[in-house]
């Protein structure tokens, strides 16, 4: 609970500041921590996002506020392969490249997106996995395709099975009429790099305000040293690993020597 204390304090401050100014749909956001550090015992982490909507815009039964939180991990290029049976074996037959697709994509909404706004607006604002842009290279063309495209659907399905893409239709909860909270799980297999948290608030089916925060997933200490050495000094890394293997073999030979 201690790590939540700081952001909570910030909201109290934000509330006090925002109190005087009724106009302007300002959005104040904070993460329980802006940096997820990966050490040798890392198995995943949970980040809590807090947000404060300007009191003038506070949710009332007559005019409910909706919040959509989208978290995108560092972009990577992926290839989706379709298998076909060839001489009795299943072979990768056809492929599509997904260029600069987020390696992690999580969508949290205060209620089902279909209830928040029209489909056209949801598409424009990239709400939900189906509306998120996924640029594909098809031959020499670059385009995003219809959500029903089998390669696109397969890509989303595989990423969801890996636990790196997900949608939580009730993932944003209001703890006060103008204060909301979303819990963002970062799995142990989460890709390393900069993440972006984008928050959009809607009322009456229209976008009211938006805000964004940066989040970083980084290896530190030993993990980082190993990974960067492997990248930057491959010869040194290879030699060190080979020497380590020989040393272990030598020690084992001495330890279990029987003659």
């Amino acid at each position, binding site marked *: 609970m201690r790590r939540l204390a700081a952001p909570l304090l910030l909201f109290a401050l934000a509330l006090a500041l925002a109190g005087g100014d009724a106009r302007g749909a300002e959005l104040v956001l904070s993460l329980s921590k802006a940096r997820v550090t990966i050490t040798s015992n890392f198995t995943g982490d949970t980040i809590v996002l807090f947000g404060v909507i300007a009191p003038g815009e506070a949710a009332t039964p007559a005019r409910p506020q909706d919040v959509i939180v989208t978290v995108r991990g560092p972009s990577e290029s992926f290839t989706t392969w379709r*298998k076909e049976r060839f001489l009795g*074996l299943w072979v990768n037959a056809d492929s599509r490249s997904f260029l600069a697709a987020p390696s992690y994509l999580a969508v949290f909404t205060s209620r089902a997106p279909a209830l928040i706004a029209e489909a056209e607006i949801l598409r424009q604002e990239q709400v939900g996995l189906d509306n998120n842009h996924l640029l594909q290279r098809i031959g020499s063309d670059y385009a995003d395709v219809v959500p029903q495209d089998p390669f696109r659907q397969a890509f989303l399905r595989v990423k969801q099975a890996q636990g790196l893409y997900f949608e939580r239709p009730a993932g944003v909860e209001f703890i006060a009429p103008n204060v909301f909270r979303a819990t963002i799980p970062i799995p*142990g*297999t989460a890709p390393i790099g900069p993440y972006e948290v984008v928050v959009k608030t809607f009322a009456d089916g229209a976008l009211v305000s938006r805000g964004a925060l940066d989040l970083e997933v980084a290896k530190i200490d030993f993990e980082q040293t190993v990974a960067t050495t492997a990248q930057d000094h491959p010869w040194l890394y290879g030699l060190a690993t080979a020497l*380590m293997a020989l040393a272990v073999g030598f020690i084992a030979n001495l330890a279990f020597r029987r*003659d």
Partner: protein
Amino acid sequence: MTIYLPIAELPVNIFTLLALGIAVGFISGMFGVGGGFLMTPLLIFLGVPPAVAVASVSTHMAASSFSGTLTYLRRGLVDVRLGLVLLTGGLTGTLAGVVAFMLLRRYGQLDLVIAVTYIVMLGTIGSLMVAESLRALLREWRGEKANVKRPGAHPWFLRMPFKMRFRQSRIYVSVIPVVTIGFAIGFLGALMGIGGGFILVPALIYLLRVPTLTSIATALMLTLVTMTAAILMHAVLNQTVDAVLGLVLMVGGTIGAQFGARAGQAMPAERLRLLLGLLVLAVGLRVAVDQIVTPADFYAVSIDEAAR
């Protein structure tokens, strides 16, 4: 207790890894093989990317083969000369294997080629071993004496030019088949993440007619050098060697191998060969079933390393 693998980029239970190392080490010590053909698929099953699994297993193989080579060197059983000639082919083969690995990964057919090579190699070697050891057991059961084959003439491939004498192995043969065998083992080793001991030992015994113990000792020395080279090449060309993963595996593996060796010595040789043959065949069948059975999802996603 989990440990985060810095190159594979996922957390794994350290005890699962250690147990895996000990179990595979036990089997490799018992049968005198590297055990890579078991270790690599098991790591992939744990979620380690295939490229990282193949590259990291080579560190484990280098450690256990160094330990074994030292023991055989002390007993004077290693045919260094034969080893060096095999190596000229072996190192070229390893480089060709690592390059093929890189190319196949780019064209998305790496998994298929690895699977087909596994099925063909393990299926063939496994069946041959099972058949041979069953015949030997049958002979023993009938009380017949093993008929030691001592044909007067060498087969045609040993009579090729560039003959060389290998004193320790008591053979005088052409270097062409020796280098070819070395190349094939190096290539398969780098591509499949196996040391090739279970292919090399029968090849030396049955094709080159090297005495059994010298075959095992020389194969271990060859595994040591090709695997050390594979570590370097994978580290430089693919950057897929996970040192943390390798360390845990090799610690478990070298301990397991000691107990395995003791268990193996208590068992008759034919039964040992039969068991190993069955094991090899089982792994081959498992891979075959995976490739033939209709997959749950017809699509697969891979990360393009080039974009990183």
